[in-house]
């Protein structure tokens, strides 16, 4: 409720009277303000916004106002001057006031200022000009507010009503849901009745299975009392204890007379004590899931909340279709289906007549969706159909097949979740084997490292020691060496000096000698001089004496020099040998020892460290490991770093990683099932049958972006619903001109009984209800939807690539409104069989009508000898020609009969008769070059039974790639009766068929056929 407000700048209140009575009032109501000052305080402080109620006053004629606080109401009347209010009294908020306030009737008065005066005379004169109590405006505003309030409430009531209507389900939706529920209940009842007739499975012993570590104690092994019952058991079978139905689970494995059951919850061994028995609950799980699906649909809890509207009323959501673009692998119609499948928001229907490349289209759609990162469910009624699609998908997609192993085709078994889990397990174990080994290896001598690290201070010390020793001995050695060297140098120097001195002296002597010799020579020459000669004769002997002295000195000095030289030489020699002699040699030896000891130690340590580092480098972050050491200093550093790193961090890191890897391996080895959820998360494409997708436990929480349903024309809604509610959008591919869903015999009988009951009972709508159930069961959802779909949500594939054009033309005209065209492949337009001299027509009918009636009649339920024999002859010929052939018949008995005939006839040819004869129902989806069809029915009443179902004939006609040969009794067929009345539609169909055969193919009598065969075998 909105509040309306009214602004007042000043509210002048005359409180004279109030002041008098307030104390009295307060005796009754102690929580009220003690006096008017307090009152003013309170109002000014907390009530600048105050709700005001307008109350009629019979006495005064004009309404009074109630200003309401949370504890009291102030009753005021306007002054006669219109400038102020008179406070009459304070009163408690009575229930009427509370009610009115709660209803939002009050107008909010926004008072800037409360001004209390005892009497009018106290009002400031200056205010008289502008002061107004706005009484009249307040009254008006209040009235307007009331009116608005009333209008609002009315609107609210309406809105609530409308909302209630909208949330309800429409009648069409209700009706669909009701019918669904009834249908599901009905089928469930019938199945339950079936099951109860089965024998309970007794066991005599039970053991817990699995390691205690993984036991949620939910897996147990049972031994059968009656081993023959093992045949009743199969993997995946759902069962419950007979006496305690809430204890249930499914069979994991069956071996000999033992079987393993995994229960839904952990159970005590005590609860399972034998002798007890199990009851199979095949339908229970499916039933519950179907019910849940309906519930979700009803409550709008489906992944696509609009699904119910689509199914019940054909209300689709519009979407913007991307522009047409040529697709490399798809034709125009297929490309349209492809585009729309990727863009549609709720549901797309694709009709794929035979041979139009449905599987191919599906494959492209799945591929594109998976590439977009969407999760796709591929589902169909049969395992074969699902596997067909999965096989056509490229292997780079992550595909998972969910289903029972026995029922899945061999090519696809590797995609089963169990298989994939196992192979993932193996590959994981293999890929990490090396690493694991490396870890384990290290773990084995981890204590070595520990010791190494523990000893590392000592190692460091030792290295330092050795290093010191080395240095010390080197020092001693070099010191000694230096000392000796110094000594020698000294001596040498002095020797050399003396040598030099001697040499000098020698030189001096020589020179003197030379001078003297010259002088002597001079003297001699001057001996004969007259006067001086006597001087010279006196001088000469002196000179000669001097010379002799000099010569002696020269000799001596030379001798000295020689001696010195030899001293020097000796000294040098001695010096050279110094190294070899003590003490240097032993000092040197000692140094060498020390050095080599040190080198050895250093080398050993470095090597060991290097070894550890190399091993660890593969397992721990390399940046945390020290660099390889190149020299002593860096080795010490590395050693230090390593020791520190190891103790502080690396050891525990290694331990953690080791433990992690061990745990990983252990887990992988024991329980590959633990990989299921991960596989599921990884997979983009999951394939399962409709019921399979319902019952598989691992799929129970999975939702899908797209659900692709193949063979949608053969699935009833109840079955289809389960995958549909799990998908955000869906694409249904099918052909409602081919076989519809099969309704179980028992169900049919039950329905008939119900129908009778309904007819008798007078309950309204009972008959309708039963017929609704019938429709739901026998008409596929596809067919029902196609009847109402809009153009945007429907595509028909129109080009067929399988049948010869001659056959396709007929089928197209009869069943597809002439919209089915044949692709322009040469082999389709000129069938290979045309070159056959005996039976050149693609579309051939062989008529037995001219045979003697007793011979051509049907027997049993039903087989026809005449037709069988013709077919066998044709087949033998085809076999000889090496052609690929199939026989299709409507009745199982006919198939058995022909099989027998073939076996007799072909014992020497090595034929495989079993797989090449089939009923129509089991051959849908298959194809063959040559197809032979036997109508089988031939009788006087012209009864044709279920041949009448034209869709069955459609399937039979559309299997051939090259040639179609039909064998039947035109008399019976053209005059067909059904339920005592002429089967007009069937008659017309046969007329058209025979006419067409005559014009576009061949229509032969059996005689002509036999004649040709005879001719053929002669030639």
């Amino acid at each position, binding site marked *: 409720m909105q509040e309306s407000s009214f602004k007042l700048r000043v509210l002048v209140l005359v409180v004279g009277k109030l002041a008098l009575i307030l104390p009295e009032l307060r005796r009754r*109501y*102690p*929580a009220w303000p003690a006096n008017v000052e307090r009152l003013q305080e309170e109002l000014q402080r907390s009530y600048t916004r105050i*709700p005001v109620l307008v109350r009629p006053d019979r006495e005064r004629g004009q309404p009074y106002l109630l200003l*309401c*606080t*949370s*504890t*009291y109401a102030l009753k005021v009347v306007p002054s006669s001057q219109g400038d102020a209010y008179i406070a009459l009294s304070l009163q*408690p*908020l*009575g*229930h009427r*006031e*509370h*009610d009115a*306030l*709660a*209803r939002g009737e009050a107008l909010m008065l926004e008072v800037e200022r409360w001004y209390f005066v005892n009497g009018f005379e106290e009002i400031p004169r200056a205010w008289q000009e502008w002061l107004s109590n706005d009484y009249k405006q307040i009254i008006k505003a209040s009235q307007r507010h009331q009116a608005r309030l009333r209008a609002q*409430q009315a609107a*609210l009531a309406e809105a*609530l009503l409308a909302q209630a209507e909208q949330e309800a389900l429409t009648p069409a939706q209700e009706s669909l849901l009701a019918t669904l529920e009834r249908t599901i209940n009905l089928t469930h009842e019938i199945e339950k009745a079936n099951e109860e007739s089965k024998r309970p499975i007794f066991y005599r012993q039970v053991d817990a299975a699995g390691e205690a570590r993984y036991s949620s104690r939910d897996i147990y092994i049972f031994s059968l009392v009656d081993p023959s019952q093992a045949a009743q058991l199969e993997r995946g079978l759902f069962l419950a204890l007979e006496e305690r139905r809430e204890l249930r689970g499914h069979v994991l494995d069956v071996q000999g007379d033992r079987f393993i059951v995994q229960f839904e919850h952990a159970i005590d061994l005590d609860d399972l004590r034998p002798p007890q028995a199990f009851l199979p609950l095949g339908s229970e799980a499916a039933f519950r899931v179907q019910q849940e699906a309906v519930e979700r649909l009803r409550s709008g809890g489906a992944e696509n909340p609009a699904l119910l509207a689509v199914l019940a009323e054909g209300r689709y959501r519009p979407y913007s279709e991307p522009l047409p673009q040529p697709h490399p692998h798809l034709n125009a119609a297929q490309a349209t289906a492809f585009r729309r499948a990727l863009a549609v928001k709720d549901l797309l229907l694709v009709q794929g007549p035979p041979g139009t490349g449905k599987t191919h289209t599906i494959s492209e759609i799945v591929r594109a969706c998976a590439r977009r990162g969407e999760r796709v469910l591929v589902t169909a009624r049969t395992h074969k159909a699902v596997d067909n699609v999965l096989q056509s998908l490229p292997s780079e997609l*992550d595909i998972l097949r969910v289903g029972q192993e026995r029922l899945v085709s061999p090519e696809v078994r590797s995609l089963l979740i169990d298989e994939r889990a196992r192979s993932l397990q193996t*590959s*994981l*174990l*293999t*890929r*990490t084997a090396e*690493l694991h080994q490396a870890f384990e290896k290290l773990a084995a001598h981890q204590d070595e490292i520990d010791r190494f690290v523990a000893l590392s201070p000592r190692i460091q010390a030792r290295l330092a020691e050795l290093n010191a020793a080395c240095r010390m001995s080197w020092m001693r050695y070099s010191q000694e060496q230096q000392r000796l060297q110094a000594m020698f140098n000294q001596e040498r120097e002095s020797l050399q000096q003396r040598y030099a001195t001697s040499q000098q002296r020698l030189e001096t002597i020589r020179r003197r000698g030379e001078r003297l010799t010259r002088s002597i020579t001079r003297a001699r020459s001057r001996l004969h001089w007259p006067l001086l000669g006597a001087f010279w004769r006196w001088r000469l002997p002196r000179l000669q004496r001097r010379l002799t002295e000099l010569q002696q000195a020269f000799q001596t000095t030379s001798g000295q020099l020689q001696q010195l030289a030899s001293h020097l030489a000796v000294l040098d020699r001695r010096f050279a040998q110094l190294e070899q002699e003590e003490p240097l040699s032993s000092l040197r030896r000692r140094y060498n020892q020390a050095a080599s000891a040190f080198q050895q130690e250093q080398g050993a340590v470095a090597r060991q460290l290097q070894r550890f580092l190399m091993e660890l480098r593969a397992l721990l*972050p390399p940046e945390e490991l020290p660099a390889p050491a190149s020299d002593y200093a860096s080795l010490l550093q590395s050693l230090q770093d390593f020791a520190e790193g190891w103790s502080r961090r690396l050891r525990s*890191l290694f331990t*953690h*990683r080791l433990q*992690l*890897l061990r*745990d*990983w391996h252990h*887990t992988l080895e024991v329980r590959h099932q*633990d*990989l299921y*959820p*991960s596989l599921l*998360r*990884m997979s983009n494409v999951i394939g399962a049958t409709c019921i399979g997708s319902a019952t598989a436990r691992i799929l129970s929480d999975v939702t899908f972006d797209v659900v692709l349903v193949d063979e949608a024309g053969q699935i009833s809604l109840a079955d289809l619903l389960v995958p549909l509610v799990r998908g955000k959008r869906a694409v249904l591919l099918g052909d409602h001109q081919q076989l519809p869903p099969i309704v179980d015999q028992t169900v049919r009988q039950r329905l008939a009984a119900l129908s009778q009951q309904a007819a008798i009972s007078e309950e309204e709508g009972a008959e309708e209800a039963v017929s609704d159930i019938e429709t739901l069961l026998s008409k596929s959802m596809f067919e029902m939807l196609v009847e109402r779909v809009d153009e945007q949500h429907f595509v028909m594939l129109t080009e067929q690539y399988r049948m010869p054009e001659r056959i396709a033309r007929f089928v197209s005209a009869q069943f597809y409104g002439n919209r089915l065209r044949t692709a322009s492949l040469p082999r389709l337009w000129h069938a290979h069989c045309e070159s056959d001299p005996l039976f050149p027509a693609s579309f051939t009918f062989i008529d037995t009508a001219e045979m003697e009636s007793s011979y051509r009649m049907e027997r049993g339920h039903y087989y026809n000898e005449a037709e069988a024999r013709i077919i066998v002859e044709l087949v033998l010929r085809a076999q000889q020609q090496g052609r690929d052939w199939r026989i299709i018949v409507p009745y199982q008995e006919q198939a058995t009969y022909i099989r027998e005939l073939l076996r007799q006839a072909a014992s020497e040819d090595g034929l495989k008769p079993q797989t090449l004869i089939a009923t129509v129902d089991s051959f849908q989806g298959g194809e063959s070059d040559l197809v032979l069809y036997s109508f089988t029915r031939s009788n006087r009443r012209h009864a044709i039974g279920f041949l009448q179902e034209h869709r069955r004939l459609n399937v039979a006609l559309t299997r051939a790639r090259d040639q179609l040969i039909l064998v039947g009794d035109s008399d019976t067929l053209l005059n067909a009766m059904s339920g005592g009345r002429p089967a007009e539609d069937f008659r017309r169909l046969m007329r058209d068929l025979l006419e067409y055969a005559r014009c576009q193919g061949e229509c032969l009598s059996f005689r002509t056929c036999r004649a040709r065969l005879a001719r053929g075998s002669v030639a």
Partner: protein
Amino acid sequence: METRGERLRNLFVSPNRVVEIVQAMGELVPLRQFRLLLPLWRVSISGRQYEKRPYELLERFLERAIGEAELRTAAELVRFFGLPPAVVAKTLDFLRTVGHVSGDDADLRLTELGQASLQSGLFLRPLESQRLLYFEAFDSQPLPRSYYERESLILSEVEAVRLGDRTITRLYSGSYFDPERLRQLARRGDREQYNLPSELELGPNAIRQVARAYFPLTVVEAHAYDEHYRHAVKKRYLAFSLVAGHRDLFFERLIQEKPAIAYSFPELDEDNVPKVIERYASRQGLQLPDEARIARNAAGLWQLVLSPRLFQAASTGERQPLRPSDVGNVRQEDGYFFQLWCKDEQLRRRSALEQTLLFVEREQRRRQPLFRGSLLQVMGHICKRLAVPVLGWSELVEFTREQGREDLLEELEA
């Protein structure tokens, strides 16, 4: 579709029960009742809660690898576990999305959440969780858990309007919800007692919406008297609601603390009571004092004592204003309590039996299962109210047979 009477009965405590409870307290006489709709704030909050579920295989191992074994790059994870790179990438993306892992593929770390999760052994996934909390609108005090167990009693504004009954008053509190109260509540250690689970983390913008709601409360004015009920010496207001126990102490305390609520009750004039009862009597077509008398019983409860003659006329098919089964029941007129009574003990016995059968009928109509033990209990209550000795099963059966209503007990005897 329930009738109006049924709706009211489902919301408010019956006068019978109220009177019973007050009388059991001793010394107080219940005089009149007020039916109120007490204003509440319905606060819609959103917070973060962690969903706990077991770890999936890959989740656990990858987180351990990043957290314990300090593998920091996606490449290392691939190498360590041998997993295909696509699988590792997908799982890492998922862990990032739920907030367990941070950093790009070359520098992976566990977030706080991731670490906490790993330690606890359960995969914690933050979820936005919404919740409704209720606070009374006078003081914004939070309502205790017991009120949430009977949440169907709490009416939305629209429902309260639709109830539009003159005898029920919607109270007005005049204040707005104080968000601080929510914060205070979040800080309390006993917040679970107020329906705020401790695992729910409230962020700064926890309040999404505040709407008005109403709680149906019956407030009873009871007096303690002096001798002969001449003067009231004490006046008390007691509160009753259909939340377990029936006497509502939480709101009783509120009324004491907020005098404004009590002030809103009109003054009780003792002289008025007989007049009110007279009005009722005349509406029922009863002649005072021949057919009915106004009195107070020993416990002080006002009574309209009916003459036995009124019930003898049954066989003649006259129009009867009252039936035997009415005797013993407390009625209220304008809120004032008075009990219909008869001096004839036989009649009162009959009333007990009839009332029991009515009860059975009503339960069957509502398809409620009924057991012998509980029926005997109910019968005991009724007998007490009627001041007759407790009746036994056989007497009930006999009475049923007399009335030709064996079908009622058939279901029971089973």
